[in-house]
Structures are given as structure tokens and as C-alpha cells.
């Protein structure tokens, strides 16, 4: 650190420090109170509100590789601000990628005319922008009963942003994608610490790659992507879980054969037939397991935490609902443990891939009132009342129930 830097640092700590740093103990207590009910007990022993550069404090489940969850309070709007957006990495060697000199290589045996694309090239291509939920496949893993190993996420490994970028199909057209192409695979600039650890590479079916909503995004909510969300560009696969949304994208591999890496199999699989999913990934499917694909219909109460104290009388409970891109048709609330249901009021529609806000006025009596929520999408899919248990803890869309005390 230079003398000049040190002076800035010391001289400004009093001014900036209070806002930036909470005392360690307060931060830890604060973080433990922000965990979703039901996650493994051990998390509270170390969890803290971590402060990554460019981010508000997030629930720090792990700092290497960085895995930071958004507390409920950051999920009260249909668009999640960039500095409140969750962070998820598998591997800890994460370079700070510069826009200058950045290139994406597009090649593979399915590409007749391989080429390289700079950030400027990408920005010159026809641009599209839409809001879409980015939800980690493992969101709510920590709520699985019994618990299953992995990053023990609560409710907040998700967010919704407006993504702007170029269509992948336009990039693939430039690469002369052959009709024999079955999958397109993606690699980011981040990598493993140990050479033997499989690099994080993901593929999607050719038909999904050609979907007009699959884009290479360079803007998130009107700004460049934050470093920790994939700067300078990431793949956006709306409707599908975050595992396919490759950050720091540097390689597009157009393939006439299925990608055979660890992160496609055995990782990120769900049992065949367990979930009511329309989007199948046939070239990666075997007799018993299939890649996770579209997000299941789900909802979350974000206005109140479980056990919140309220005043007796009218209490407005609100939250978010979302799905794999069919769109939310209906959100219902029950205050009698699921016997009877009443429609909640749906808020602004930011598109079929976005969070749909909803609200409901509960008449809170003295004592306890339970509030349960269930979303239905445009093809009639609803949430489940009992967990569909699977070994990786994916697709937990059990109807949430909280208790309010007046």
C-alpha cells in the first residue's frame, strides 16, 4: 500500500467505516437471524454478513469459492438490484476479467466457420432486453428433509434482473452452425484451483441454444454486469436454472456429440419423471436421471419472516411468484392451513420469465395466524404440499407457510 493510499484509508475510515463495517459480532448475529428456517444448524456457528466489492452485505455461506445469499429483505421488489443479487461459484480461481481485449471463442465440430467475438462486436449485434429470474438449481437445498450435502442455500439463491445482450442464435449463425449440432457447450474464465478438478463446463440442447430468448448478456439492470455476476458477459437461459447461465463466458463449443463432463453428469441431475417438466434434455438423459432444466413454479413471502410480530387487524402480506417461463396466472393464500384458499392480488407483470409480485390482506387475530401461499402458472402447474425428495435437493417448491403473531 502506498503512503497516499494509507492516508486515504486511515483518514476516511471514520466517515466511511460506519456504513461499510458492522462490528464482527453484530454482523454474525445479524446473519444468523437472516437464515431461512430449516437450514442445517451448523451454519449459524460461523455465518456472517459478507461484503464483496460492489455488493451490499449478503449472507456469506462461503467466501472461497464465493457463495453469498440474498436475505429476504432484498427480495421485496420484482427486480433485484445488482448490488443485492446473490453470488454463486463452484471453483475458486476467478480472474478479474477486463473488457479490453476480451474475446469469446466460438468453435467446435458443429461450427463450419469458427470465429472470435469481442465485447464491441457483441454490442454491435441486434440487442434484446428482458427481465428474467436467475435461480440457482440448489436454491432451498438447505431446506431439504433429510438434509443433503452441498451449499446449503435457503430462500435467497435467486434474483430477477433485466438482461440485455445479443441472441446466441445470431452468434451461432455467424459460426455456421451445422444441422448435425446436438448441443452447445459453454465455459467461463473461472477455473479450478487443482488441475484435476473438472472445469465448470455446461451444455444446453441445440434447440434451446436457438431459442430467441437465450442471449449472451452484457448488461444487467442497465449497467455492466457486476464482476461477481459474470462481467463482462454471461449466458442468460431464461426459464432454466442458473447452472446454465455461464459467467465470464469465454468459449462457446458447438457440438455434434453430447458434452461428457462431470458438471453435466453426474452433477446437476434429477430423477427421470419426478418433476412435471416440459423441457427435456434428451441427449443427456439416461434411464434414471436427466439434467435439471426449467425452474418449477414457486412463490415466496418476502414481506414478513416466519414468526414475525404484527399488530392485530389488517396486515398486508406480499411476496413473489415465478416459474420456468410459462408465466404466473394465479397466487392463492390460505390462513387455515390449506383448507380454503383465496386469490392474492397480482402486481406488475414484467414478462413471463420475471418475478411476479403479489399481495394479500390478512386479518390477523390476537395470537397466531398462519399464512400459506401457492402459485399456479399458465399451464396449470402448482406447487407441492410435500417435498419431492431428491439427492441433490433440487426443485423444492413446497408451499411456504409462515406464522404471524399479533
Amino acid at each position: 500500500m502506498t503512503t497516499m493510499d494509507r492516508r486515504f484509508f486511515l483518514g476516511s475510515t471514520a466517515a466511511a467505516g460506519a456504513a461499510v463495517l458492522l462490528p464482527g459480532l453484530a454482523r454474525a448475529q445479524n446473519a444468523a437471524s437472516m437464515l431461512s428456517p430449516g437450514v442445517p444448524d451448523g451454519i449459524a456457528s460461523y455465518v456472517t454478513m459478507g461484503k464483496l466489492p460492489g455488493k451490499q452485505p449478503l449472507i456469506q455461506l462461503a467466501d472461497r469459492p464465493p457463495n453469498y445469499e440474498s436475505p429476504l429483505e432484498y427480495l421485496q421488489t420484482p427486480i433485484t438490484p445488482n448490488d443485492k443479487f446473490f453470488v454463486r461459484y463452484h471453483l475458486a480461481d476467478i480472474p478479474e476479467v477486463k473488457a479490453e481485449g476480451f474475446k469469446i471463442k466460438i468453435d467446435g465440430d458443429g461450427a463450419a466457420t469458427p470465429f472470435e467475438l469481442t465485447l464491441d462486436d457483441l454490442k454491435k449485434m441486434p440487442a434484446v432486453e428482458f427481465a428474467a429470474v436467475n435461480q440457482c438449481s440448489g436454491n432451498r437445498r438447505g431446506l431439504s428433509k433429510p438434509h443433503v450435502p452441498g451449499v446449503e442455500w435457503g430462500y435467497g439463491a435467486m434474483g430477477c434482473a433485466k438482461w440485455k445482450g445479443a441472441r446466441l442464435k445470431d452468434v451461432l449463425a455467424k459460426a455456421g452452425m451445422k444441422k448435425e449440432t446436438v448441443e452447445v457447450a459453454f465455459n467461463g474464465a473461472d477455473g479450478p484451483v487443482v488441475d484435476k478438478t473438472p472445469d465448470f463446463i455446461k451444455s444446453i440442447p441445440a434447440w434451446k441454444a436457438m431459442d430467441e430468448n437465450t442471449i449472451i448478456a452484457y448488461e444487467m439492470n442497465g449497467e455492466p454486469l457486476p464482476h461477481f455476476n459474470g462481467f463482462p458477459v454471461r449466458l442468460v437461459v431464461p426459464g432454466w436454472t442458473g447452472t446454465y447461465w455461464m459467467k465470464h463466458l469465454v468459449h462457446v463449443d458447438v457440438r455434434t456429440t453430447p458434452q461428457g463432463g462431470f458438471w453435466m453428469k453426474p452433477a446437476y441431475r434429477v430423477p427421470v419423471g419426478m418433476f412435471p417438466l416440459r423441457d427435456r434434455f434428451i441427449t443427456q438423459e439416461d434411464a434414471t436421471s436427466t439434467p435439471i432444466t426449467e425452474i418449477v413454479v414457486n412463490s415466496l413471502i418476502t414481506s414478513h419472516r416466519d414468526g414475525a410480530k404484527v399488530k392485530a387487524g389488517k396486515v398486508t402480506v406480499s411476496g413473489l411468484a415465478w416459474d420456468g417461463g410459462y408465466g404466473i396466472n394465479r397466487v392463492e393464500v390460505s390462513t387455515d392451513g390449506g383448507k380454503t384458499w383465496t386469490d392474492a392480488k397480482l402486481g406488475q407483470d414484467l414478462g413471463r420469465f420475471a418475478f411476479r409480485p403479489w399481495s394479500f390482506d390478512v386479518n390477523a387475530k390476537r395470537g397466531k395466524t398462519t399464512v400459506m401461499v401457492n402459485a399456479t402458472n399458465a399451464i396449470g402447474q402448482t406447487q407441492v404440499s410435500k417435498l419431492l425428495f431428491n439427492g441433490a435437493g433440487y426443485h423444492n417448491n413446497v408451499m411456504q407457510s409462515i406464522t404471524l403473531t399479533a
Partner: protein
Amino acid sequence: MRTIVIAAAAALLAGTAFADEQVIKLKPGPGLDKVENNCQACHTLAYIPMNSVYLNAAGWDAEVTKMIKAYGAPVDDEDAKAIKAYLTQNYGK
């Protein structure tokens, strides 16, 4: 100017926090040294308390085996045995 100074200080503080990793103090016990020597090369020790307490001996065995077989962690057999025993004893059910 003031804004610039504060912004610079905030960036510095944030940078410092990022460089200085959270220290995870695991429970003392036989094998802790093997855990510290082997596991931290690739990831924070936070993954251990995070995944507790719910795994039994077979569960921790499977996790350590996964780290070696699937993720290529260079852990020798003797250390792996000690790590499994430590995790089961201190973070197992």
C-alpha cells in the same frame, strides 16, 4: 473531492475484506491438522460446519471420497482416513 476520497476508502476496505478470508475455527480433535492441510487448498473450511450436523459416518465418507475421486483433490489414503474420522467425530450425527 470528498466523494472521491470516500469512494476510494470504501473500495480499499472492500478489497481488504475480500483479501482477508474469514477464519473458520473448527472444533479441536485428532485429524484437524489433516483437514486444515488438505481441504483449504480449494475451498474455505466453512463447508464443514455448513454441512452439519446431519451426515453420519457413511455420509462424510462419501463426501471425502467425492472430493478425491470427482474433484481430484490430492489427498493420500492415510490423510483421507483421518479426515473422515475427524468429520464424523466432530461434525457427524
